[in-house]
């Protein structure tokens, strides 16, 4: 069984492996499904996150040379679970690097987390002094998620209580352009990539993405894959939306300052300034707040999801800015 792609839309090729696990796993995925056994442990974060990303990707678009039946091969499912447990353990261990907020309602706690976040800002850097190369690198990193924007969150819809479910659908339907291809955010992002001279094909840059980038996407896939993490994806989405208008205004400024003034180059960012001002309050109050109201026990999971976002995004931002400061590329 191979995936059939729509005209002009092809599943990407498997990326090059980066360690012991991805090496063995990707060789296996090129064959018809069989029971994986005796796999090596990931030999670092890059290997862990590339292998986990590939496991998840089988449930999104997949890979051109990988049989679609691998997605449900029991040993692959078991591998995915074991990699998720490693990722979760790393999150639990590091979460206290992110300030906590324990007082008040869930929307108030999320706002307090944002106020206390002291991570550096890639958007601020790019708006004021970033180079074209740096802007292009940022777009390449974000392509891992933004060419499938909202796809991880969609899986959460059936797991939410009514008010939170309606809010999630309200936000997500906007992400998908209200059902109109030309307004779908992943489509706007593809156009932005191409307007900046980059490849807009799905998965085109997977070979260039370090684990610190893939972790930001794996976090959403993890939270979206399991009902037990429904609170975490609500908190993750809420804080993403609550901080997005400001970041996208700065990215829009960077794009224009660096001479990319076409509608294709700027539309994605301008659209998000306006759209995410809506999503911000709906996600904070109706989605996260609505979930906590219906299921008070979810409040701490919602806040954990938000802090986990800040943890992986903080690492991502520090990676990019320190590479650029040292005159290096932040890509692999």
């Amino acid at each position, binding site marked *: 069984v191979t995936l059939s792609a729509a005209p002009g839309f092809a599943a990407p090729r498997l990326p090059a492996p980066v360690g012991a696990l991805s090496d063995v796993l990707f060789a296996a995925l090129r064959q018809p499904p069989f029971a994986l056994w005796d796999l090596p442990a990931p030999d670092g974060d890059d290997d862990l996150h590339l292998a986990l990303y590939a496991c998840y990707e089988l449930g999104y678009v997949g890979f051109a040379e990988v049989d679609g039946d691998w997605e449900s091969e029991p040993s692959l499912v078991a591998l995915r679970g074991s990699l998720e447990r490693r990722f979760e353990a790393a999150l639990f261990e590091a979460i206290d690097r992110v300030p906590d907020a324990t007082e008040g309602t869930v*929307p108030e706690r999320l706002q307090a987390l944002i106020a206390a976040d002291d991570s550096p800002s890639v958007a601020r850097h790019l708006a004021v002094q970033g180079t074209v190369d740096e802007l292009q690198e940022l777009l390449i990193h974000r392509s891992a998620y933004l060419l499938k924007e909202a796809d991880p969150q969609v899986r959460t819809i059936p797991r939410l209580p009514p008010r939170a479910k309606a809010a999630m659908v*309200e936000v997500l*339907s*906007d992400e998908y352009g*209200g059902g109109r291809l030309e*307004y779908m955010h992943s489509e706007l992002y593809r156009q932005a990539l191409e307007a900046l001279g980059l490849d807009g094909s799905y998965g085109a840059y997977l070979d260039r993405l370090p684990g610190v980038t893939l972790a930001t996407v794996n976090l959403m896939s993890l939270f979206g894959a399991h009902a037990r993490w429904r609170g975490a994806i609500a908190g993750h989405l809420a804080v993403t939306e*609550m901080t997005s*208008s*400001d970041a996208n*205004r700065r990215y829009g400024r960077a794009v224009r300052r660096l001479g990319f003034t076409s509608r294709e180059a700027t539309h994605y960012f301008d659209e998000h*300034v*306006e*759209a*995410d*001002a*809506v999503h*911000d*309050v*709906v996600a904070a*109050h109706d989605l996260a707040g609505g979930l906590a109201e219906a299921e008070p026990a979810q409040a701490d999971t919602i806040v954990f999801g938000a802090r986990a976002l800040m943890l992986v995004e903080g690492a991502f931002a520090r990676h990019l800015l320190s590479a650029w400061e040292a005159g290096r590329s932040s890509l692999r």
Partner: protein
Amino acid sequence: MTEGPDTEITPYRDGPLIVRGPIRLVDATGAEIPVRRTTIALCRCGRSRIKPFCDGTHKAVGFSDR
């Protein structure tokens, strides 16, 4: 009488007016301001750079409705 969906306007705490449902938005001369999405946020703090829409600036300026 025709039955259509209601229009609902909600002032969110320390935030914008969220407008859901069918509306026509016009400027002071009566010219139509295009509205594409079904839920929009209108500026309530006066500081948005994309008025009449909200751009989240109320948070940076500490807008409070209390």
